[in-house]
């Protein structure tokens, strides 16, 4: 039996595993892909740490609190920002190849909503280089990986009248087998749910929120699920991310008439709305980085040039880049306490799948890589300590039987309805009715359609019957997970009758402190969604 089972092998999962191992735990990392293929590799802009002479930890805290729009937890944000410098120093020691300034310090740049050049970067490959360096360090630490294991359900048991997690059930892609792994503690690090927006998202196809959906089905509380960050600059056709660093370096946004129309370095929520408005008004918005020059673009933004050429057939050195805002990061997640533990005993969560209340209603660029390091270390330590005192027994739960029955039942689904079409429909529905701007009518009709799709699941199904590497089945399970999350997202979006950060209601355009200075929480109870709000515990108005 493992001390610590980490589910999800991206940046957050690997930091957690390294930390748990260092604390003396017997740990394994399970992921649905290979570690270096996870979403973390797509982070480009940087990781925040107030190291510059004209910057301070207080300024970082103030910027983060301000951007969170009253939904950030002051203690959590304090910890995040205070440990930033140490987190970057740790990565430096692990061997992350950061870009360097002329003074040989780690190079930093300014991202939106920041008062200073705060994001430490490695060209526009910051996430990629952090992820790979973490992987190399996990090999050095001899951490076991179970790659291409798809999470099906959590295993739980009742002990001393309390329910606790004791492992999880997985589908092994390579063989088709269903296997259970037992552990005294489980850390969920499975990433966000932006792919609910299907191709209106910058994210990799795997960001289907599996960990959140599984946690929801296990009775775990999720919070702030209505908050989805739209990145202002996705490529117009392919929704591929063009990093904020392009604007941080002086890139301009132009409307269809070639005029600038807004402050390019506002936080992402406000800027996405401004771009959306402008697209409605003038028909198109472009990012212009021509004036930065070929040398700068090749040096600091090598990925952007390649991707713009590939997907839009334009060269940013000589052409303006057509863009639109697309779903990028999900602030909501598994609700956790100050120990990073969820409402289910022995289940911890970290990274984008968790809600540590540091981003609130709108995340700042550069704070998510920081979050996964600071809270990854914390959660690994805490899980290792909890495992030491745990009295859990070797084999637990009978969840595996139910899972196998469910997988058998899917085989009898009728395939009258094509779930791939429904997946695209879900994305359209969310982008247009649960996207940058929302209203009661649109959200209600979206919820009705999502209920329809949930009802129709048995009419969908899996045509491929192969045991080995059945991606048709995996994609169906991912779609089913996304549908469950879509339902709770819409319920939360409907219930928050105000506008705050990334949640903009056309019918309730003002922020309502009296009612909604609170986190939404959703639960499944007897298969029905329940929602409530809990007041923000400690906040500081900025």
């Amino acid at each position, binding site marked *: 039996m493992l001390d610590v089972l980490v589910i999800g092998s991206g940046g957050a999962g690997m930091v957690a595993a390294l930390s748990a191992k260092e604390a003396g735990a017997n740990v394994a990392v399970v992921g649905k892909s*290979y570690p270096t293929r996870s979403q973390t590799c797509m982070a480009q802009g940087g990781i925040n740490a107030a190291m510059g002479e004209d910057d301070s930890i207080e300024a970082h805290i103030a910027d983060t609190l301000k951007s969170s729009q009253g939904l950030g937890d002051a203690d959590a944000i304090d910890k995040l920002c205070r440990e930033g410098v140490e987190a970057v120093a740790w990565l430096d020691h692990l061997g992350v*190849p*950061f870009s360097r300034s002329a003074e040989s310090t780690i190079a930093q740049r300014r991202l939106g909503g920041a008062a200073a050049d705060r994001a430490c970067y490695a060209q526009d490959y910051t996430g990629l280089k952090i992820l*790979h360096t973490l992987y*190399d360090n996990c090999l050095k630490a001899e951490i076991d990986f179970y790659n291409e294991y798809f999470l099906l359900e959590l295993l739980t048991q009742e002990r001393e009248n309390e329910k606790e997690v004791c492992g999880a059930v997985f589908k092994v892609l390579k063989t088709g087998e269903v296997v259970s792994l037992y552990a005294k503690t489980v850390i969920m690090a499975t990433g966000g749910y932006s792919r609910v927006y299907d191709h209106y998202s910058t994210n990799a196809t795997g960001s289907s929120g599996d960990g959140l959906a599984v946690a929801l089905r296990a009775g775990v509380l999720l919070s702030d699920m209505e908050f989805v960050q739209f990145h202002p600059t996705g490529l117009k056709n392919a929704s591929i991310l063009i990093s904020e660093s392009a604007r941080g370096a002086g890139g301009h946004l132009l409307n269809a008439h070639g005029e600038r129309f807004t402050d390019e370095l506002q936080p992402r929520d406000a800027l996405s709305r401004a771009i959306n408005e402008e697209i409605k008004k003038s028909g198109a918005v472009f990012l212009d980085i021509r004036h930065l020059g070929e040398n700068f673009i090749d040096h600091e933004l090598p990925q952007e040039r390649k*991707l713009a050429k*590939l997907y839009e057939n334009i060269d940013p050195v000589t052409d303006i880049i057509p863009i639109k805002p697309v779903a990028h990061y999900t602030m909501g997640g598994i609700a956790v306490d100050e120990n990073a533990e969820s409402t289910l005993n022995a289940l911890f969560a970290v990274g984008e799948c968790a809600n540590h209340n540091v981003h609130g209603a709108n995340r700042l660029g550069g704070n998510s890589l920081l979050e996964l390091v600071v809270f990854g270390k914390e959660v690994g330590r805490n899980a290792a300590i909890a495992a030491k005192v745990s009295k859990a027994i070797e084999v637990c739960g009978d969840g595996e039987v139910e899972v196998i029955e469910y997988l058998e039942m899917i085989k009898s689904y009728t395939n009258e309805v094509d779930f791939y079409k429904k997946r695209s429909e879900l994305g359209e529905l969310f982008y247009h009715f649960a996207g940058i701007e929302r209203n009661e009518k649109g959200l209600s009709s979206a919820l009705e359609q999502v209920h329809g799709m949930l009802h129709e699941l048995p009419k969908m199904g899996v*045509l491929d019957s192969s045991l080995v*590497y059945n*991606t048709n089945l995996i994609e169906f399970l991912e779609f089913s997970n996304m549908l469950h999350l879509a339902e709770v997202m819409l319920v939360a979006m409907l219930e928050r009758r105000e506008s705050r950060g990334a949640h903009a209601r056309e019918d309730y355009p003002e922020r309502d402190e009296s009612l909604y200075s609170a986190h939404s929480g959703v639960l499944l109870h007897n298969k029905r969604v329940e929602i409530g709000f809990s007041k923000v515990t400690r906040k500081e108005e900025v």
Partner: protein
Amino acid sequence: MTINIMRNGEKSVYEVAEQDATLLQVLTEIKTTQDTSLSFASGCRSSVCGSCAVRVNGKEVLACAYKPQSGDVVEPLRNVPLLRDLVVDMEKALSFNKVAKSWAITPETLPLVTPDAAEINEVQSDCILCGACYSACPVYAVNPEFIGPFALTRNWRYVSDVREDDVAGKIAAVQSNGVWDCTLCGECVPVCPQGIAPKSDIDMLRNKSNVLGYMDPKYASFGGGLDFGAPSF
């Protein structure tokens, strides 16, 4: 447009309407509208996750960065166990990163890293472990235990890092089935989607090995090695 896909040794032919799309978009279109059983790996669509490397007309490419032509033949990577269709098992290939000890060992107080020093391994650390170089490498035909191009590049990425404290240990790790087993044929270079040249990195590792007293075993076996020290007439 006609796309031929080699599936477990047999050719499947698909007709697709897609124009100016990436191969990954075409494969996705086939899977979601024509044949749900077609298996391939994919992730980020932006050439950073390394999931979708395949061979097209015999050359390794990332499906998300290649725009197909009618008649193209798409095959899985070589030198790795085939799981299904275009999906291969990367476990053994990735295990060579561990053999090569490709990780950092750094001192308590780090030395200053100048912009020039950072640039030395900037490109090498762009590696996405897609396996294209591994597939293109002919050495695997004769030596399945060869540490191989990406793991050696990764070793060099740390050896060349000014923060590294154990260059000797890393160089020692790549002597057997490593730097000397490479034929420097250069097949790995043009297939790298990130513009990395493993061959050059291996060459650098050979030089570093020489400096640390290692020799190419092919020459070392000549009666205790060739002595270029004192000329004898």
